[in-house]
């Protein structure tokens, strides 16, 4: 039940899927221009502009406190930018509420895992299909949501299969190990049926072999679901191995963007990581 047919051509995507803008590979999906966020006197993100191309895996690195997570929050509507704009598939989505952003097709995970801890793994993944389904109160009460519910259920199980947690579908998410919680969060983000997936430190707390598996898993998911992926990651070898392009943030400013090899040689980047 895993596989490409899970999303493409699936009945659930008819009509309810994120409005997909016709885009070919290499075309830009996301564009940030001049994104800035101040907290009081502190500038967490300062005039950041970049673009993310369709189908690529785009890494975001930088020292602790560089503003990476804040940038994700700006991109998903959790924090409104102080200034600057963000477009997604050509549409200006600056200042959109998080649920609208998710509805348009940007899914995410969180650095400090935010699963619904006392709910089961299965329910976590079902909940995240909200924007792709439409049964309202009356349908739910009269049982006219049965067909949709069955599809929600099937998709949730398939996604748990994908991350290897189907055997523990009924367990509370909070009881899972750190690594499994990260996997479940990815399944939950995929359940929103995104075009762009933002992963905030997906490898944190994983050991070396798990990190290796994660790399191939992200690649596979990107291919199967036709995704664009943005990853915040501390572990530099993983980023260099996984990403097509990398952006480096330091003190809220974007100091370099490019392919991993050239970014690694960039003197400004070396200074940011070593100079302190």
């Amino acid at each position, binding site marked *: 039940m895993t596989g490409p047919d899970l999303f493409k051509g699936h009945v659930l995507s008819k009509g309810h899927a994120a409005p997909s803008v016709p885009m070919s590979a290499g075309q830009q999906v996301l564009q940030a221009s001049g994104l800035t966020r101040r907290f009081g006197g502190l500038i967490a993100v300062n005039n950041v502009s970049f673009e993310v191309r369709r189908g690529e895996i785009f890494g975001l690195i930088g020292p602790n406190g560089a503003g990476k997570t804040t940038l994700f*929050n700006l991109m998903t509507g959790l*924090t409104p930018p102080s200034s600057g704009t963000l477009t997604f598939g050509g549409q200006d989505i600056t200042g959109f509420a998080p649920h609208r952003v998710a509805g348009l097709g940007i899914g995410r995970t969180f650095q400090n895992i935010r699963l619904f801890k006392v709910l089961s793994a299965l329910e976590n993944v079902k909940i995240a299909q909200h924007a792709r389904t439409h049964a309202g109160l009356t349908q739910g009460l009269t049982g006219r949501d049965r067909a949709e519910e069955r599809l929600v259920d099937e998709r949730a199980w398939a996604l748990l299969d994908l991350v290897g947690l189907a055997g523990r579908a009924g367990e509370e998410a909070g009881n899972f190990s750190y690594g499994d919680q990260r996997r479940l969060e990815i399944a939950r983000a995929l359940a929103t049926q995104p075009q762009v997936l933002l992963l905030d430190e997906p490898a944190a707390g994983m050991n070396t072999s798990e990190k290796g598996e994660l790399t191939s898993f992200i690649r596979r998911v990107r291919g199967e679901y036709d995704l664009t992926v943005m990853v915040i990651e501390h572990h530099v070898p993983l980023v260099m191995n996984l990403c097509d392009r990398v952006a480096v943030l330091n003190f809220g400013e974007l100091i370099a963007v490019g392919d991993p090899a050239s970014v690694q040689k960039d003197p400004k980047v070396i200074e940011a990581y070593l100079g302190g």
Partner: protein
Amino acid sequence: MTELLQNLINGLAIGSVYAIFALGYTLVFSILGIINFAHGAVFTLGAYFTYTLVVGQFENNGLIKGINLFPAGSPFHGSAWAFAAAALIGAVLSGLVAVVIERLAFRPMRARGADPLLALVSSLGVALVIVNLIQILVGAESYSFPTDIYGDLKPALIFSLGGKLIVVRTVQVIIFAVSMVLLLILGYVIGRTRIGKALRAVAENPGTASLLGISVTRFIIITFFLSGFLGGLAGTLVSTAFSVAGPYFGVAYGLKGLAVIVLGGLGSIPGAVVGGLVIGLAEAFVPAEYSAYKDAVAFALLFVILLIRPQGLLGRVQIQKV
């Protein structure tokens, strides 16, 4: 002009009692993050303690009736000093009751990390017990303090301004003065002394505070004592201005106190003072023809302030970490 002045005087007097009463709420909130609904009952108790010490006699109903603890000639009879002593002892007793409440109704809950909402129910249970015990012991009637509790002081000062009279009741002056002195002392204790610094540390973060070697439990006990002391004294002051209006009369003040602390900012000590004065003044300025709606003023203010500035007038904004 005279009307304005008169309203101002009335508003400041009642507002200052609201302030010291609300301080009791806010102290507990700032340390434990819970709202102690029993505070209104402690307020009532304070008034009954003082009344017992001053008059010592409840007629009509209840188990305690027709007795006279303090007949003429006993220490609590007559002078203004006797009344002051009674009010002080009443407040201390209220403080001790608050400490007992903490021990019985809050500490066991804290020990197991229960939902803070349960503290609402538990403290309301305590309030129910206190209020009904009062009713069983001394009945539901309201009692008025004798007019001579302030000894030789005149009951009111009357000024003439532009041909109109302004009445300043002695009770109002006393209430205002006592409240202000208390606020200054409290401000000094919390702002300048080691106890105050420790209290603030516990309020900021109980975990860290206990790492620093501060006994959190001890400071929680101190906080509850202060809270009960302030509540009991406010009860005495209000009841001398009006009457000891039955076992339930603290409940309404308990609710109004909620409006005060939210208006000022939950957990903010200067906020409680500002909130108390604002609500006291707002009520005093309600025109006479709408006086029936006076009790809605505090709650209308509460509702509006929550909608436009949930952190209150002097509270800090909490930034949620993602």
